[in-house]
Every structure is written in structure tokens, then in C-alpha cells.
């Protein structure tokens, strides 16, 4: 947990992806819960669509990368087993 925080990443469970057009520029509202509390409070991050992995689906395990509190990348966590 501490190591993850120091790297500026959080693991989550994707709940929903909502495309948003802001003045013609596409973004994604990424709704997610903590991987440690999948039924807990849903958070949302607005991320440039180019920074969100393709073909994500609700229920996927995701990794969110932060920089100064801003989510800058969302990737899928591939199960190892």
C-alpha cells in the first residue's frame, strides 16, 4: 500500500466509463472504487481519452496513475494467474 502510494498509483475496480466532450476534446469520466473496498464509495476521475486503456469494461481491475492529484493514466491490471 505504501509503496503504491509513493509511486503515485492506486488500484481500483472500474464501475463505469462515460465519454465527455469538453469544447470538442474528448475525455473520459472514469468511475471506480478502491480495489481494497470494491463496494465502497465510488470515485470519479476525468482523464483524456488517449490516457485510458482501450476496451476497458466494468468490473475490470485497473491501475490509476496520479501526478499532483490528477489521474494521468488508466491501465488494465492483467491477472497473473
Amino acid at each position, binding site marked *: 500500500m505504501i509503496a503504491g*502510494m509513493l509511486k503515485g498509483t492506486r488500484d481500483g475496480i472500474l464501475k463505469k466509463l462515460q465519454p465527455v466532450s469538453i469544447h470538442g476534446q474528448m475525455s473520459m469520466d472514469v468511475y471506480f472504487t478502491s480495489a481494497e473496498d470494491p463496494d465502497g464509495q465510488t470515485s470519479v476521475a476525468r482523464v483524456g481519452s488517449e490516457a485510458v486503456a482501450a476496451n476497458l469494461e466494468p468490473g475490470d481491475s485497473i491501475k490509476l496513475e496520479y501526478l499532483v492529484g*490528477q489521474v494521468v493514466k488508466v491501465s488494465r491490471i492483467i491477472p497473473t494467474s
Partner: protein
Amino acid sequence: MREFFDAYARAADSVDLAFFESAYAETFMFAGPAGVQAVKRDDFLKVLPRRKAFFASIGLTDTQVSRLEETTLDELHTMVRVQWALRFEKAPRPPIVDQSSATYVLRRNEPSAQIVFQIDHQDLARRAQELGLIPAQA
């Protein structure tokens, strides 16, 4: 310090990268509800336009210092807690002025000072959600 953070507010509203390049140390620590990390200034400068786009998308139109508390730590370092007044305008809703705060440690670097540590006390995305500026999950 008041002058520095008034300039910071103006730079935040206009995405003045030159200001932020002078205002932050080459590497600084950032802490917030999501965690703690060492940030390279160059990476921070790259994310600023995206950060500005996010704030614009939720209707942020103005940032001002509403309160500032300054503590001298030693000859080189000063800690400043800043309360920011953030004005959001998202029609048809009436404007909202919300308060957020952050604490900065600045290191004197004549003729000015540079931020070497920043703590954001709120998750602004979550706050935007609470204020209804980002739609709740359907």
C-alpha cells in the same frame, strides 16, 4: 508570500508555465489524499494544461487566495498554508464559491522562493463530485 500566491492564482487561471517553472523546485514532494510522490518539475509542467482543462470542464472560472498563514521554519524554509476560494460557474446553476486549502514549504532561492513540498488537503475531483460538478454515477 501573499504576492507570490496571488501570482500563483493568476498563473493557475492562465496556465502560465513560465511562472510555474520558476515557482517550483526542479524536483518537489507532493502529498494529497491519493498518496505521496516525488514529482519532477518537467512532468508537472506537462500535466498542467490537462489539469487546467479538467478545472475548466467543471466550471472553474476564478481562483483567489482567501487566507494565508505563514510560518518561518528556518533561515531557508517557510511553510505557508493557503486557503483558496474557487469560483465555479456552470449554467444553469448559480455560481458556487468553494474553499480548498493546501500547505506549501518554500525554500528561499534569491531573489524569489521555490516550492519544495506541497500538500493538497482535498481530493478536488471528489469535491467536484460532491458539488455536483461531475455527474454522479448513473
